[in-house]
């Protein structure tokens, strides 16, 4: 029984279970489902490590007629990350949602549909299948953002939905052009067929615009902060750690698998500049935010800028710096996932305990909530890219790639980015150490701090055990 379809069936089945049988203990049901999924992801991870990449034709129809699912090193690492973050967020949500009775009923079905869409996207090898996966992801994410039903959540949900729909249409237009030109939708086949003509260039440009819109890269990022900042803590953790990365994953696959020879160097540098602007603008906005969740949301906008540095460092550069850039970007994607999820969970616990949202209301909490603050600290070490953390190793790889390809301006961007990140992170810390303020806090369940700590510890552990995922993240074959 092949493992790949299991990763799709489990979340969809559990979505139905939690939708149709609300009287069951939803939390425990969810946990059982996710542990099963984590087990499957782990088994798939190790058999890809042993036997190498494998593909799976659905319905026994071989591409281009049917849809194939591809599980190579990168896919499997991302599947394992998704399962791990989902387990911890589910465990956190069971205790966190006790304070939110109304949202509990519909949180779990949407959570499972979102997970199914994510797994579908990581595994998909077909362009139109990716489109439907993105739509399922968007609708369930918008559903989770608007769960609370208050006015600001609805406005954030609407803004997110409109931006995502516009992005999806641009992506679909690109797919339409590619199908019109080459007659196939399978990414593997396309990567050998693509050649530089106006239709292909325009198609890839449109798809890039659509995916940039969905990844909230700098000029198109205005929908992300209200959506991630306003949502419930486990929701914003999953959105920032996983959902935003899926469209970047498609972009990276598209350019690195199929179009690496097609992207002109000037376009790659433009994407890099957008990334740099995102780092600086996002960081500056985060520094100026008064609400702590908005601060973390703008930090996501900034950190996504680092991912965009993949293109200038890989396209048109030497083979060695391209491999380093690819590994550095994917390691950053991983460690940012864990660290940002830990940060949102920790901040969620603090907001739940203090009852107020602003950074200044957090005065003196280091005495009252040491574990949550410690988790926030560990996570911010990885976000800032200070050793020993996964974030630092990723920054190191990107820096090596920039130095080897002689592009020192990206080294400067990396450094300025970590300085700005340090400025807004330590703003939270200096507030929390004030001695005379003693905030009244509600007691929160220790499980909340434990889950944030676990995720933060994984981000730090990535600093020491980065060798394991990095080997698996070898560049797609045709680039080597």
């Amino acid at each position, binding site marked *: 029984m092949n493992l790949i379809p299991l990763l799709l069936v489990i979340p969809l089945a559990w979505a139905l279970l939690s939708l149709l049988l609300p009287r069951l203990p939803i939390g425990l049901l969810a946990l059982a489902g996710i542990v099963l999924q984590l087990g499957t992801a782990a088994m798939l991870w190790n058999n890809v490590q042993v036997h190498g990449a494998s593909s799976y034709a659905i319905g026994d129809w071989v591409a281009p007629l049917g849809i194939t699912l591809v599980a190579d090193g990168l896919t499997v690492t991302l599947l394992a990350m998704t399962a791990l973050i989902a387990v911890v967020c589910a465990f956190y949500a069971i205790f966190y949602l006790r304070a939110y009775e109304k949202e509990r009923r519909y949180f779990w079905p949407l959570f499972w549909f979102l997970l199914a869409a994510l797994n579908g996207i990581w595994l998909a090898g077909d362009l139109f299948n990716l489109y439907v996966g993105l739509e399922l992801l968007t609708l369930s994410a918008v559903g989770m953002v608007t769960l609370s039903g208050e006015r600001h959540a609805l406005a954030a949900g609407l803004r997110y939905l409109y931006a995502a729909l516009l992005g999806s249409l641009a992506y679909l237009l690109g797919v339409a052009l590619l199908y019109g030109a080459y007659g196939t939708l399978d990414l593997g086949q396309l990567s050998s067929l693509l050649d530089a003509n106006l239709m292909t260039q325009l198609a890839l440009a449109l798809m890039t615009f659509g995916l940039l819109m969905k990844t909230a890269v700098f000029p198109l990022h205005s929908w992300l902060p209200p959506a991630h900042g306003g949502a419930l803590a486990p929701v914003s953790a999953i959105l920032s750690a996983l959902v935003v990365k899926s469209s970047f994953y498609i972009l990276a696959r598209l350019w690195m698998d199929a179009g690496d020879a097609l992207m002109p160097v000037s376009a790659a540098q433009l994407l890099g500049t957008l990334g740099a602007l995102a780092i600086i603008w996002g960081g500056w906005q985060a520094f100026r935010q008064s609400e702590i969740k908005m601060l973390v949301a703008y930090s996501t906008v900034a950190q996504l800028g680092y991912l965009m540095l993949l293109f200038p460092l890989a396209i048109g550069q030497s083979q060695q710096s391209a491999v380093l850039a690819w590994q550095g970007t994917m390691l950053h994607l991983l460690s940012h996932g864990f660290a940002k999820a830990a940060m949102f969970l920790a901040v969620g616990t603090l907001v739940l305990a203090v009852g107020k949202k602003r950074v200044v209301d957090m005065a*003196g909490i280091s*005495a009252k909530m040491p574990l949550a603050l410690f988790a926030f600290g560990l996570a911010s*070490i990885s976000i800032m890219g200070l050793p020993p953390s996964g974030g630092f190793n990723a920054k*190191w790889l990107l820096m090596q790639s920039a130095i080897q390809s002689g592009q020192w301006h990206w080294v400067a961007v990396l450094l300025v980015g970590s*300085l700005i990140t*340090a400025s807004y992170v330590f703003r939270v810390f200096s507030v929390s*150490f004030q*001695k005379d303020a003693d905030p009244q806090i509600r007691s929160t369940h220790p499980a909340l701090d434990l889950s944030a700590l676990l995720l933060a510890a994984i981000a730090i552990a990535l600093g020491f055990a980065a060798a394991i995922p990095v080997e698996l993240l070898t560049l797609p074959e045709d680039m080597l």
Partner: protein
Amino acid sequence: MNFWLPLLVLATSLVAALFIFTLPEERHALRGSFNLLAAVVKIALVGWMIIAVANQQTFETRFTLMGDIDFVLRADALSLLFAGLSSLLWLFTTIYAMGYLEGTPQRSRFFGFFSLCVASTMGVSMAGNLFTFLIFFEMLTLSTYPLVVHKGSAEALRAGRTYLFYTIGGGVALLVGIASLHALVGHTEFVETGVLRDVSPDLYPALTAIFVLLIAGLGVKAAIVPLHGWLPAAMVAPAPVSALLHAVAVVKAGAFGVVRVIYNVFGVEFSYQLGVLVPLAAVASFTIIWGSIQALRQSDIKKRLAFSTVSQVSYIILGLSLFGPIGTMGGLVHLLHQGIMKVTLFFCAGIFAETLGITRIRDLNGVGKRMPLTSAAFTIGAFGMIGIPPVAGFISKWYLGWGAMEAGLHWVLGVLLVSSLLNAAYFLPVIYRLWFARPAPEWPDEQIPAGRFETNPWLLLPTVITAAFSLGAGVFAAAAWSPLSWAELIAVREYLS
């Protein structure tokens, strides 16, 4: 066993930190005893390693972090010099801190981060390559920040912000230096006499730039003049923090980094050939003079001691940049001596503040009668700083001068002379006030009455011991296990092989 020992030394304080973090606030006894136990175990392990390394054994922990980068902990002669100093002084400072923080809130948090700091100092001392060194160097920054802002007052938070601004900026410079070195050379291992001996000349400008970046990054923590701003500001921290961290651990980590870069990365011959040693000596000398002049102008005891640290650390860097075994020995031994003496001085400053509430120098009149032992310890420390025999300071200044003569840099001798005079200028008036000035009729805000001891025994005991150590290091300098002989052992290995 050779693989696990360095990791074990690191683990003792890491485990202690994590355990103490989870301890509830009121468990004072358990926390105190656990702290002391960890300190004693660490000293025992480091002692064992010192003996083993003396007869040519090596300890190394190595595992691959990522691709071509390894995480290496190696205990060689140089690393044990710094590790020995830190672990010894950590024991005394822990005793002192337990006495000093009696009855104050947040002690679990304090001692947790305190052990984390020493764990990173151990990591800095035993790092086997620049990458591991950077990991623990940045961990030191992160774990000292909560100690600087421990009091939580607005002034402490401002000091914390300046501290972060300097140290994270330094960290960034260091990161760029190490990254470009790694890109240029392919690895950043510490090798006995340096890695870069046979590098082609057209790389010299790049290597000089990297050298400047590395020294700038390390210079922030070694408080070289333009980058020293955080040290006087950080004096707002509690006394044990200023004593162990800002006089020993953090500042020495910077100096130790400079030693590693010059001796084990660039190699002292190559750096001399590259022509970077003389400008470094110039910068160090300027810092010595400038630091001493600033110390003269300070009216607060701890601020004066802080500026004195700024200038004293540059003695070490001066010694290192003197091309020759004697100069190196002078620098290395001063690393140890200055540590012991400065800790004593900061302990005394802490006692004056805690017992009689004195923080300004002009209130010190006649304190000698009221607190003879503390004043005696302060005097020994001050004499050491000035370089008066038989205290340890004299030995290191003697070797520095001798090394300068060997290296043919006669102006360095002048610098030593002028700085010693300046040291005398800012320490002797304090000593005069202590012993010969007429005491005020009564001490306005005296917290600890003069019982059987002049102050809280927990504070007095470590101060007296460290004073005795600084005296002993001077008198028994020629003995087998003295700091001087250990420095000689290192210098011999650095130059001959």
